[in-house]
């Protein structure tokens, strides 16, 4: 029977987990904990790095194997995945949420003007023609966000909660294109949403509405933003917020 492990319980399994010496429910339990625990992820990576030194001597890779791999790259495009929750431009979200006061509407327009682009999906234009991913923007966005996260020129900004249990990982490329790469924020009910804010001076400027369960998302970061925060708001998002951030992080 699968159950929730405490951190200390899970930590005791990290050596055997890293060497694939666990199976069944135990493996699933540890995997679940590691997925959401940065400290455990770090330790598993360290163990695997050590294990790589124990690996046997390199041999010649089999003749013809690369040709088989290369030919199957053409034959098997990546499988489709469920699309993540899209970023909803705040103007559109506001209309869906019902009428706001005139002052709020003016503020929303002003905020949009400051930010320039609200919640746009950013896609990589270097795509392989004919690939299914190109026909699936959600999957492509996910892939692009992950690629950005691996880009050595990108700046990573980890947003964390006060107790460090919740986190969201963002990266910002030198051109200001930003991505929410992943998060472990719990899913909200249908009447709530997460909203991403750029921290500029002493203000929070809305970057976009992330939905009830944030997935990979692209955004444009204001050049003078010194950090980002995610708040919980009423469904549809708000123009300005006084809510305390669920997670927050600053540029290094």
């Amino acid at each position, binding site marked *: 029977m699968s159950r929730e492990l405490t951190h200390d319980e899970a930590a005791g399994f990290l*050596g055997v987990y890293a060497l694939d010496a666990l199976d069944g429910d135990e493996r699933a339990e540890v995997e679940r904990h590691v997925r959401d625990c940065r400290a455990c992820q770090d330790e598993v*990576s360290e*163990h695997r790095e050590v*294990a790589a030194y124990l690996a046997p001597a390199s041999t010649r890779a089999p003749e013809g194997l690369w040709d088989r791999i290369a030919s*199957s790259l053409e034959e098997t495009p990546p499988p489709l995945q469920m699309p993540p929750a899209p970023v909803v431009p705040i103007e559109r979200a506001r209309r869906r949420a019902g009428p706001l006061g005139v002052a709020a509407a003016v503020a929303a327009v002003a905020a949009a003007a400051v930010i320039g682009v609200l919640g746009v999906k950013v896609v990589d234009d*270097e795509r392989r023609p004919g690939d299914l991913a190109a026909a699936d923007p959600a999957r492509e966005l996910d892939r692009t966000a992950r690629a950005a996260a691996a880009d050595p020129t990108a700046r990573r900004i980890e947003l964390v909660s006060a107790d460090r249990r919740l986190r969201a990982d963002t990266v910002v490329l030198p051109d200001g294109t930003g991505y929410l790469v992943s998060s472990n924020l719990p899913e909200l009910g249908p009447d709530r949403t997460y909203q991403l804010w750029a921290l500029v001076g002493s203000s929070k400027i809305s970057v976009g509405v992330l939905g009830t369960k944030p997935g990979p998302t692209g955004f444009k970061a204001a050049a003078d933003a010194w950090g980002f925060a995610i708040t919980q708001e009423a469904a549809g998002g708000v123009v300005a917020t006084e809510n305390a951030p669920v997670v927050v992080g600053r540029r290094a």
Partner: protein
Amino acid sequence: MSLSDAGDAALVVAIGRWRQDALAEAYRRHAGAAFALARRLLNDRELAEEVLQEVFLRLWNEPERFDPERGSLRSYLLAQVHGRSVDLLRSETSRRRREEREARETAEHGVDIEREVIDLTVASQVKEVVAGLPSDERKAIELAYFGGHTYRQVAVLLDQPEGTVKSRIRSGLRRLRQDLVDVGVGVS
């Protein structure tokens, strides 16, 4: 910068942009070690080739799974190869093939990571560090890593409590890491 000079992160970014030559470069660098590990675990050339193909296709389809902040591309690929090989080892089909093979190979007993470890210039330091491990820790790691056994199976094989084996594997890996750092082998 050409791909042959590119670091792991840049190489995987290029793979993320569907550059086949970047995947070819990753293959050129790491396929030999990956194949050696798969064959060591599976003792079956055909299955090892299948594992290798699967792992490199996965790198192509899901490059984002590699996080350069969490280690080298080599260790990432070897961990993938190890995990997939162990899954196969524990599958029914493979178990049957393994039993048939083991029946033929009566001369071979156990494994010895002191003799298994050869990593070009760092080979001697790594061997020395492995040899310096307490034997209980070394045996447990050997059986788990090269034998593909679960820690419960290792406990039975070594006639030790499961909790002890679990702790020894973790402490052994930590000790290895520290000792490798101490002798100047760059564990990231």
